């Protein structure tokens, strides 16, 4: 018996799967070399959208998958990020690089401010409240003259200092690398958090808040922490997206569709797991970008219809998401990275 105990103590807390590590290393290398194979602008754009939505779906996953709450208003952190960096650049000429961090700060403050009163809400009530908050932010930004109200902000074009102003007019490749780096940083941070003490405590709260509190975990505090972590990785995507399109308006930056899409991606890929949102993104984003080309314009929302059908299929056949197609041996947490 004691022998078994000694043996068990020699096992690492987290097993690291060499195959998965190698696969990730290989993919990351591919990502870095991708621009060298002369991809078309559309292909670059597609990759940028994949990086962006992968991060946003991960942000949603932090709330839903790690602490168990369904947010329907996640777009607000995207909008706040986008508006903050743009506003400080337009108004004071502050480089968006700094703007990104001011955006993170604002998003975190908003996460705390709405997190505290919402803590008492669970299940449907939490979801409905986040939905309403999402709408209210859009309405507020549509009426707020300081930041351009409904017509939004136009970021003044600049050709002299592309890296300082974070504007690239000749090529999408710099955007590609910037989004790639943020994507890698976000996923790496979440991966670290997932395996940390905070990760354990958040999963405890997700599975059973009462049991968690009987083990000395302050549930409210950790729910707020999850909210803030989520906001911190979401917000820069808004800032970067604003720099990518250079014209932002409330319709676009606080679009409820974004809240819904990140939810669909995460659910489809698999919630509560670091890689689920990435898998969901790799499938859904190309799908929606291609339908957009195929049907023109915004895709006539055909992509949403396809999403809807896919989500129904997933719910029926693979309730724990596409990630469950991975061999069970790899997925079992003790062996999975």
């Amino acid at each position: 018996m004691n022998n078994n105990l000694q043996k068990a103590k020699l096992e690492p807390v987290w097993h690291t799967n060499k195959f998965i590590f190698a696969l990730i290393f290989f993919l990351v290398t591919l990502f870095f070399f991708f621009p060298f194979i002369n991809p078309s602008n559309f292909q670059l754009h597609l990759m940028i959208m994949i990086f962006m939505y992968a991060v946003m779906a991960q942000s949603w996953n932090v709330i839903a998958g790690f602490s168990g709450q369904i947010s329907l208003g996640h777009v607000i952190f995207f909008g706040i990020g986008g508006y903050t960096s743009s506003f400080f650049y337009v108004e004071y000429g502050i480089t968006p690089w700094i703007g990104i961090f001011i955006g993170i700060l604002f998003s975190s403050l908003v996460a705390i401010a709405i997190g505290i009163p919402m803590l008492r809400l669970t299940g449907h009530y939490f979801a409905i409240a986040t939905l309403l908050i999402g709408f209210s932010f859009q309405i507020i930004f549509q009426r707020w003259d300081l930041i351009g109200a409904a017509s939004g902000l136009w970021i003044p074009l600049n050709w002299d200092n592309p890296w300082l102003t974070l504007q690239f007019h000749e090529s999408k490749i710099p955007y590609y690398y910037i989004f790639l780096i943020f994507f890698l940083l976000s996923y790496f941070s979440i991966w670290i958090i997932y395996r940390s003490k905070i990760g354990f405590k958040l999963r405890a709260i997700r599975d059973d808040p009462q049991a968690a509190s009987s083990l000395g975990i302050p549930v409210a505090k950790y729910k707020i922490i999850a909210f803030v972590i989520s906001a911190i990785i979401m917000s820069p995507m808004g800032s970067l997206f604003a720099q990518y399109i250079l014209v932002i308006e409330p319709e676009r930056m606080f679009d409820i569709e974004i809240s819904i899409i990140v939810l669909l991606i995460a659910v489809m890929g698999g919630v509560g797991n670091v890689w689920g949102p990435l898998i969901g993104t790799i499938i859904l984003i190309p799908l929606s970008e291609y339908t957009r080309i195929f049907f023109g314009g915004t895709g006539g929302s055909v992509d949403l219809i396809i999403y809807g059908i896919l989500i129904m299929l997933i719910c029926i056949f693979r309730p724990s998401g596409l990630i469950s197609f991975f061999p069970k041996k790899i997925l079992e947490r003790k062996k999975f990275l």
Partner: protein
Amino acid sequence: MTVVLEVENLSKSFGGIKANNNISFRASSGEIIGIIGPNGAGKSTLFDLITGYTKPDSGGVKFNGKSILNLRPDLISSLGIGRTFQKLKPFLDQTLLENVIIGALATGINLNQARDKALEMIDFVDLIDKRHYFAKELSTGQRKRLELARAMATEPKLLMMDEVTGGVDQKTVPGLVELIKKLNKLGVTILTIEHNMRVIMDISHKILALDQGKKIIFDKPKNVQLNEKVIDAYLGVVNATTS
């Protein structure tokens, strides 16, 4: 002996039902206190009042001389009161080891230390071979052990167990009883709610008998056994069904 827990005139009503009606008792360091009473007597409610899951209407609870009335459950836990739940609350989608690691983290140690501590507790409850099983794959008896190990990992000075031997395979009862005695030998004061009279008479230093929210008696097992109200309210029924 020093008094660890002091419950003073605790009362709680749900609508018209007086779930706890002026309950008082004390637990001293190193004691095992058994709590008995028929279904609906208010045993679990008493646990919830002590551990902060339910707010009492009146009365007081002191732990190591300090009032813990109206503190949040997590704060009460960090003061050194561990508990298990009658309706089990394992973290179903996590492994046994992960469940217990979460308990061990309560003592402020790092993840590796928490893992070692968790493994020791799992070994203590005799489930070391099942450490990588998901909680949902464990039997009811094993889940009860999980909850014990998880609560123990927080290093409580007082451990409150709600029907550890209830609803498990009868064969596993002696093992669970041994476990409780072993815990107690480590110096942990124990409150245990039990329906199994043989178990409760065997392990308790004192017994608190409740009926319809009221304390009937709080005394040594042999005195409780002879108490007429206890026999009326409880023992008669149980003896009839278990013998």
